[in-house]
């Protein structure tokens, strides 16, 4: 599964993209976040406050309970500031 990070999530984590194989038992976005938080201090810092983190799966906004498939592209980013 491709996992992408943008803006300050990317700078805190230190890179823009990971390829992750979902372990058994990790089924939704919440589970993926717990898995990522354990990858290192940068990940834990970036994903500390979920109120400031948006999640998209296959280019659509989703909630934390969204179920994941191995072929999904998941992205984590802060609230958007375009326009």
């Amino acid at each position, binding site marked *: 599964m491709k996992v992408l990070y943008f*803006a300050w999530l990317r700078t805190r984590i230190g890179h823009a993209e990971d390829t992750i194989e979902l372990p058994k038992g990790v089924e939704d976005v919440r589970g993926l976040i717990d898995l990522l938080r354990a990858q290192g201090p940068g990940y834990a810092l970036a994903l500390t406050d979920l109120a400031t983190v948006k999640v998209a799966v296959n*280019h*659509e906004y989703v909630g934390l309970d969204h179920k994941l498939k191995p072929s999904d592209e998941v*992205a984590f980013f*802060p609230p*958007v*500031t*375009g*326009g």
Partner: protein
Amino acid sequence: MIRVQREDFDPGAEVAALTRGRHDVGGVVTFVGLVRDLAEGKALGAMTLEHYPGMTEKQLRAIDDEANRRWPLAASLVIHRYGRLEPGDRIVLVATASPHRDAAFDACRFLIDWLKTQAPFWKLEEGEAGAKWVEAKASDDAAALRWQAKPAKKPDAAE
């Protein structure tokens, strides 16, 4: 129609192209967003707009479709730039064309309000104190909320 691009755009030429040969258009409303030289009272040197290729286009297309669903538009165009921009540079163009002005004004306002809260762009500002990611504004959320479909009116108990 939507476009996401690094290059600048010419608002006049874009409007001319949008309405060329369209004799059903009675009015065009345009919004052009520019880079200001002040950010929270501090001098801004430049900003870099990051985006999420693929999702940006998909979200802009959805917003543009929604505008065309809600209002009788003859044509609409959203152009959003990314990359490094300096004060005075154009960031975004929204143009809406309609037989009558009300639809064009409302749809233009809707498009810019919604794209600010939905389209995945992020501004990194470069000022005297270094680079800083811009935080989302509650006022932008409030502006977008105005355009949410009104819920069906509940029966009033007093009536």
